[in-house]
């Protein structure tokens, strides 16, 4: 149980150190950076993937694109992609790192949005058109609300992925909580490694929790079948 003792020792050292709570390398700043990069990448991915998934799912055109991107995104090593972009584009701005982050988080949203829309009962689509809803209304008023659980699942999976990849991206010079881990490992500062790791894990869990809550709030009880029997 030696490791457990050293774990708590390192935790105490990291979180007890006043210097770790202020300044550009302090926990609040790093946390904010991590949030900023993750949110930026996720937002861009959502802006690309949700409309694309809606259109492909609704029109049925371009399905191959979805399948390929899904398989490729899973197979591509994140670290390799990050290093490649940084070697190609330099480190003058954060974009060489943000671009691969976005690239990797597009497919989960794209696939799930597409599957969600495509999976809507054809009878429902038929009824909607039959009552005189226009194409856009069918999509917005019927298909999206019904597919929402899957669309949000895609966003959650992407968010998980982005938080993890942002951590790895610290290796190529990006700020955020990953810095503690990468720098700590390089300088054998195990307090930093352990403290940083715990912070990232907590961050990821909070993100997961927020998405789960968002799902409860936004998905109609008629779809989630979460309803109080009266």
């Amino acid at each position, binding site marked *: 149980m030696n490791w457990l003792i050293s774990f708590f020792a390192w935790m105490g050292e990291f979180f007890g150190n006043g210097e770790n709570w202020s300044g550009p390398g302090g926990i609040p700043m790093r946390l904010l950076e991590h949030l900023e990069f993750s949110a930026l990448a996720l937002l861009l991915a959502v802006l690309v993937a949700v409309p694309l998934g809606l259109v492909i799912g609704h029109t049925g055109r371009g399905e191959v694109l979805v399948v390929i991107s899904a398989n490729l995104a899973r197979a591509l090593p994140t670290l390799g992609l990050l290093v490649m972009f940084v070697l190609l584009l330099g480190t003058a701005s954060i974009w060489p790192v943000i671009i691969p982050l976005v690239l990797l988080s597009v497919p989960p949203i794209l696939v799930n949005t597409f599957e969600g829309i495509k999976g809507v009962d054809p009878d429902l689509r038929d009824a909607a058109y039959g009552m005189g809803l226009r194409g856009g209304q069918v999509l917005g008023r019927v298909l999206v609300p019904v597919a929402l659980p899957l669309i949000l699942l895609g966003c959650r999976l992407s968010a998980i992925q982005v938080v993890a990849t942002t951590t*790895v991206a610290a290796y190529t010079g990006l700020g955020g909580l990953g810095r503690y881990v990468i720098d700590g490992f390089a300088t054998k500062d195990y307090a930093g490694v352990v403290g*940083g790791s715990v912070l990232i*894990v907590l961050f990821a869990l909070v993100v997961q929790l927020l998405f789960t809550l968002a799902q409860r709030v936004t998905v109609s009880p008629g779809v989630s079948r979460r309803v109080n029997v009266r």
Partner: protein
Amino acid sequence: MGEGPPSLWEWIGRNWDTGRAGSIKDLLLDHLTMSLVPILLALVVALPLGLACVRWRWLYQPASGLMNVVYALPSLPVFMLLISVTGLTQTTVIIPLAFYGVAVLLPAVVGGLDSVPDHVRQSAVAMGFTPRRRLLAVELPIAVPVVLAGLRVVAVSSISLVSVGALIGQGGLGGLFTRAYQNPFMPPVIVGIVLIVLLALIADGLLVLAQRLLTPWVRARKGATS
């Protein structure tokens, strides 16, 4: 040297099998070990766990909830936290990957077993199958396609995730990425990405093949309807 950086093919030729640690061949073998072991471990754990969840329904909710949380944990900090227990070894990479694998496979196993139509199960009971024979001869074969679909996801993501281990010095081909970053040089990155994607494609292809061999009726049915 002074003759400029070597070309991609030159670099591959020079580094494929140097006889020292860190040759491409070495890294490739490490990579295979670190990705295949978690895949197998995940299967060995997820199958009985899934069966248990189907047998005792109350177990599924907490088990899948736990696995959802596990799946949300970013790999790098988990590797780092494990170092103090298992050291800078391959085990440190293998254990978390196996857990991610279980997180993906558990719903696949349960979903697969749930996909057995009730009338099939009932008629197996009516014909006098014992529960164990029914499981082996009827339910598991029907569940195979769903389980294998999950296994394909696990295989491909494990193979690509191993490379993050390079940040603790145990990343198989991921080592090529850290090497390329420290000594800015593109060929190792290209080789690393291509080999990892190739490995993933081969694993995926083998699993598709396995599915065809294990469930010939699925393909026959597709042929009949088209």
